[in-house]
């Protein structure tokens, strides 16, 4: 039974959790909101973790708003340091490390875990991932006094960290089995622009190969690659993608595929439980980016406050914060046939993807051409 006097309970204090809370509060000044998080609940911008050095910020300085201020500003009951352990759907309550909490509607904004590739070697457990502020603080501590950083993965996070670390004077090597950086996001010409620009910024690429093992040496670590080569590093960062956190939902019997499956309204297979952000799967896609969260949060807030509103995703370009060659990309839908056209030269490229009917369906901008984002967004047919 849904008891409307029970609060809306949100699990997760990342951008998704806090944004849903804020959007609900905009629509309903009275509705009780409880936000449950295993973390401290301080609000920080996760995308900024990978360019904090350029911003001259340490982990503590990345906190935009302390947890207590967030709770007061939004008007919610914050249960920080409280880990949700089970969803009791029949009773409409969650169990936590600090007792049970009843809900009328539940929002899962629980994020994703970094994927870790199986690595051999006696130092494989020294390979770091940076997925939250605490990880980042530990990463910065380990960086202190070192010079050589190896990054496993040339995706968005790997490239951003590479650029940030190189800019701060570190010697950076990036390893990836693909032939170009950002291979899952960018057409080859744009990937090459990034590859060349970051090489000019001092980043060494080891592309077309993967890391097999990491072993301790007297001075640091030695990575052995699949192509038979080796490289030495003081710090090794793994950035090979995210896997939605699904365990809590799975154990509650909700439908899971790559992520927690949600319908057009953001509802899971239980209509009183919604999911948003990096843990959610919208249609067939997981969208672990800022703009899908902002858009979905506004729709969810309406639905949660009694005005069911489907999530409408506009064109949502992804920004890659690589100052040596900034990138804005709106990937074309995977099921659309078409062709890329290219304008520009060097690192300043404008690539436009058109379908058979000559409609613009995606684009990629690099370097100085990223300034054309707003114009391109308007041209895209979704």
């Amino acid at each position, binding site marked *: 039974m849904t008891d409307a006097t029970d609060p809306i309970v949100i699990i997760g204090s990342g951008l998704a959790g806090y944004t849903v809370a804020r959007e609900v509060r905009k629509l309903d000044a009275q509705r009780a909101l409880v936000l449950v998080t295993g973390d401290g609940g301080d609000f920080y911008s996760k995308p900024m973790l990978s360019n904090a050095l350029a911003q001259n910020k340490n982990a503590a300085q990345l906190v935009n708003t302390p947890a207590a201020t967030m709770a007061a500003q939004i008007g919610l009951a914050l249960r920080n340091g409280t880990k949700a352990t089970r969803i009791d759907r029949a009773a409409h309550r969650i169990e936590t490390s600090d007792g049970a909490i009843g809900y009328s509607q539940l929002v899962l904004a629980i994020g994703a875990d970094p994927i870790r590739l199986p690595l051999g070697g006696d130092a494989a457990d020294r390979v770091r991932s940076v997925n939250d502020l605490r990880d980042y603080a530990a990463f910065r501590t380990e960086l202190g006094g070192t010079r050589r950083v190896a990054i496993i993965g040339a995706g968005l996070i790997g490239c951003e960290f590479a650029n940030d670390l190189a800019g701060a004077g570190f010697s950076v090597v990036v390893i990836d089995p693909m032939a170009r950086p950002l291979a899952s996001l960018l057409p080859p010409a744009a990937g090459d622009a990034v590859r060349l620009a970051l090489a000019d910024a001092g980043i060494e690429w080891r592309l077309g190969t993967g890391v097999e093992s990491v072993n301790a040496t007297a001075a640091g670590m030695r990575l052995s690659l699949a192509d038979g080569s080796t490289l030495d590093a003081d710090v090794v960062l793994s950035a090979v993608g995210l896997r939605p956190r699904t365990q809590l939902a799975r154990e509650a019997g909700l439908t899971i595929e790559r992520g927690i499956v949600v319908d057009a309204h953001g509802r899971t297979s239980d209509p009183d439980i919604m999911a948003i952000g990096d843990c959610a799967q919208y249609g067939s896609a997981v969208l672990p980016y800022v703009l899908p969260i902002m*858009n979905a949060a506004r729709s969810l807030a309406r639905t949660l406050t009694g005005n069911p509103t489907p999530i409408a995703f506009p064109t949502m*370009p992804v920004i890659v914060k690589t100052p040596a060659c900034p990138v804005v990309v709106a990937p074309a839908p995977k099921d659309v046939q078409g062709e890329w056209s290219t304008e520009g030269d060097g690192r300043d490229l404008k690539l436009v993807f058109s379908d058979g009917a000559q409609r613009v369906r995606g684009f990629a901008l690099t370097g100085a051409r990223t*300034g054309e984002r707003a114009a391109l967004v308007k041209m895209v047919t979704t």
Partner: protein
Amino acid sequence: MQVWECVVCGFIYDEAKGLPEDGIAPGTKWEDVPADWACPDCGVAKADFSMQLLAA
């Protein structure tokens, strides 16, 4: 003149300085920033997210 901060990423928009590289002249008030303007750092649209007013 007021100063606004992107709630998502901390980007600062200072009305006094405008954002000439985005074609927004110095002195442009927040309400006069175009509706299709997006945060240069994180891409959040003006319409998607209100910026927070900082003490200037």
